[in-house]
C-alpha cells in the first residue's frame, strides 16, 4: 500500500514539473503582450521596448522560465503587471471561493445522486427509475449560465431568500459566507448530479447481477444492507473517476458563475488576466490549479485502493 502510494506520488512530482513548463510556454504563445494593456494601444515602439526590458520579457524564454520557476520555489509568484497586486494574494483570496463553490456543488451532487441511484438501481425501468433517469438527463442539458440567471431571478430577486451577488469570506462571517455560496453552488451542481447519478445507477445495476449479490441474498440479508454493504462499494469506480475529472474541471472553471455572482475566484481572475496578457497572474493561477488537479487525482487513486484492496496489487 505505502509503496504503491509512494510510486504514485513520485509520478505526480514529475507531472507537476512538466506542467510548469507547459504552463509557461502556453502563456507565451498568446499573441500580443502586456505592454498594450499597460501603455495603451497608441504608445511608441520605443516605450514598449523599454517596458518589456523592465519587465524582463526581452530575455530568452529559457531564462524567463528559470527566473520564474526559481522564484516560485522560494514562494514568490510575482505581481500583476496591471494592478501590481501580488499573485500570491490573488490566489489566496480567489482559491477559497473556488474551493467553496466546488464543495457546495459536489456535496449537494453526491447527496442527491447517491441515494437516488441506490433507490432506482433496484427498480430498473420501473416508473420511478424512468422519471429519475429522464429528469437527470434534463439537468445535463442545463448549463450553469442558464441555471444561474433563473436561480437569481427566482430565489434572489423574486423570493429574496438569497443575495443576488457578492461574497463574504468565511473567516469574516461564516453564516453570511455559506448563505452567499448556496445559489452559485447550486447553479454548478446540476450537471454533476446527472453524471454521478447515471454512472452510479448503471454500475449498481451491473453489480447487482453478480454472484456475490445472490450469495448475500441467500444469507437472508435485507435489501438495504445488501445495497449498502455489498453493492455500493464495488460500484463506485466510475463515480470516483468521474468526480475526479469533474472537480478538476471546476477548479478555475467556474468563471461564468463567478462572473454572474460577482465573485473574484480563480476562474474569474484567470480570464481577466488572459485578456490583459498578465503573464505572471496566468502562470501562477494555472500552476496552482494544475497542482491542485494532480493532488486531486492522487486522492482519487488513493480512494481506489481504499475501495478495492485488489488495486494495490495491479
Amino acid at each position: 500500500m505505502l509503496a504503491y502510494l509512494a510510486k504514485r506520488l513520485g509520478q505526480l512530482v514529475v507531472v507537476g514539473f512538466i506542467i510548469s513548463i507547459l504552463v509557461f510556454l502556453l502563456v507565451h504563445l498568446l499573441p500580443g503582450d502586456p505592454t498594450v494593456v499597460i501603455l495603451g494601444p497608441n504608445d511608441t515602439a520605443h516605450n514598449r521596448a523599454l517596458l518589456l526590458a523592465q519587465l524582463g520579457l526581452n530575455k530568452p524564454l529559457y531564462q524567463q522560465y528559470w527566473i520564474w520557476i526559481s522564484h516560485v520555489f522560494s514562494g514568490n509568484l510575482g505581481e500583476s503587471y496591471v494592478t501590481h497586486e501580488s499573485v500570491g494574494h490573488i490566489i489566496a483570496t480567489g482559491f477559497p471561493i473556488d474551493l467553496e463553490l466546488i464543495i457546495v456543488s459536489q456535496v449537494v451532487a453526491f447527496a442527491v445522486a447517491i441515494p437516488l441511484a441506490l433507490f432506482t438501481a433496484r427498480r430498473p425501468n420501473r416508473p420511478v427509475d424512468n422519471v429519475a433517469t429522464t429528469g437527470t438527463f434534463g439537468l445535463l442539458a442545463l448549463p450553469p449560465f442558464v441555471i444561474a440567471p433563473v436561480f437569481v431571478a427566482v430565489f434572489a430577486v423574486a423570493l429574496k431568500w438569497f443575495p443576488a451577488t457578492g461574497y463574504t469570506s468565511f473567516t469574516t462571517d461564516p453564516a453570511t459566507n455559506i448563505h452567499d455560496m448556496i445559489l452559485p453552488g447550486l447553479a454548478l451542481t446540476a450537471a454533476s448530479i446527472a453524471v454521478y447519478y447515471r454512472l452510479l445507477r448503471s454500475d449498481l445495476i451491473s453489480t447487482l447481477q453478480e454472484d456475490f449479490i445472490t450469495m448475500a441474498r441467500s444469507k437472508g440479508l435485507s435489501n438495504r444492507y445488501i445495497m449498502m454493504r455489498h453493492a455500493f462499494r464495488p460500484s463506485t469506480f466510475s463515480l470516483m473517476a468521474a468526480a475526479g475529472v469533474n472537480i478538476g474541471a471546476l477548479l478555475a472553471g467556474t468563471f461564468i458563475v463567478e462572473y454572474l455572482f460577482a465573485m473574484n475566484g480563480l476562474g474569474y481572475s484567470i480570464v481577466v488576466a488572459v485578456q490583459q496578457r498578465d503573464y505572471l497572474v496566468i502562470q501562477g493561477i494555472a500552476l496552482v490549479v494544475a497542482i491542485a488537479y494532480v493532488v486531486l487525482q492522487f486522492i482519487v487513486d488513493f480512494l481506489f485502493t481504499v475501495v478495492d484492496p485488489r488495486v494495490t496489487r495491479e
Partner: protein
Amino acid sequence: MIRPTAGRGNAGTLHFPDVSDLADPLLEVEDLVTSFRTTRGTVHAVDRVSLTVNRGQTLGVVGESGSGKTVLSRSIMGLLPARDVLRSGTVRFAGHDLTAMEPAQLRQVWGAQLSMIFQDPMTALNPVVRIGRQITESLRLHLKMDRKEATATAIELLRSVGIPSPEQRIRSYPFQLSGGMRQRVMIAIALACAPRLVLADEPTTGLDVTVQAQILDLLAAMQQERHMAVILVTHDLGVVAKRADDIAVMYAGRIVERAPTRTLFAHTRMPYTRALMDSIPRLSDPSGTRLRAIGGRPPDLIHPPTGCRFSPRCPYVQDKCREADPPLRTAGSPDHLFACWFPLVDGVPSGPSGSGQPVTLTTNGAPNNAVEAPAS
C-alpha cells in the same frame, strides 16, 4: 468446536419451528415449475419437478449443463429474480410452504435454516469485503450475536473447515486465498448458522481434482457432525455415486430418473442415466479408450422436443418416444422412479410396460428395434 446452534436458544427456532413430523421428509418439492420470460420466448427451465430429502441425508441432483439443475436449486430456495420468472408448485421445508412465504419471512429462513454453497467462490464471495465480515454478517443477523461473539465464532468456523491460522485469515480478502481455501470459506459461510439443509450447487466444479475430494469430504464430515441434509447438485455422476443417499437425474428441466443411489446404479432404467454412467472414465479402461460422450446436445428449453425430451439423442428411440411424453413411474421398488417408455433392464431396452407395473425381463439382446412400437 463451537456450534453456532449452541448459543441460539429459542430465538432462532421461534421464527421457524419445524412443524413437520420428524418421520416426514425435511424437504418435499412437488410439481415445481420455473420458467423465465425472455425476448426469445419462455424458457422452461424446471418442469414439474418433485423430490424429497430426508433429515440428515444427501440427495444428488445430476444433469448436464443446461439441464436446469442450478435453476432448480435456486427455485427451491426462492432465490430467483423478482421479474420475468414464473414459478408454481410447492416447496415444503420443515413443514412450511416456502412458495407461500413473503420475502421478509424467507429472509429469516435463508442463511439460517436453508443455505447455499455456490459454484465459483471467486465470484460468489464479495471481492471487496473481508472474509470475516462475510461470515459474521449472517451470525449477527440470525443468531443476534454481538461483534466479539460473531468474530470468535467465525474464527472457529474457519478452523473447522481447515483454514490455517484463522485469526489472521479472517482479515483477508477473497483474492488473497487459493481456490480451495475460498471454497472452504464458502462452506464456513453456508454452515455458519447451522442450517438444516444446504444446497450445494456444483461446489467443486471450479477446483482441482485433488482439492475436489477434500472439499467433498469436508462437506460430508460437517454434514455428519451437524446432521444436516444436503442437496448436492453436479454434472458428475461420479461425484455423487459414493456420497449421496438418493440421486435424481435431470434432463431438460425434468427429473427423468430418481432412486436410492444403490438401486440407481444396480437397476438403471433410463437410457440417459446409463449414458451418464458410461461417460465416466474408468481406471480399468485400457489407455487410449475413447471417452463415451453423449451425442448431440441438450435441447432448447424454449422449444423442447415433443414426446420424450431425450428421444433425439437416445440410442434406443422408438416412434412412441417421439410422440408421447413418458410419465414418471415406478418399477421394482416404489422408491425408484423413471420416465421412459422402454426402460432398460440389465442394460437393454425392455418391452413397453404398463404404468406402475414391474417391467418384465426380456432376453432379446438386440439394442435397437427390439420391440415393436405399441399401438396407442
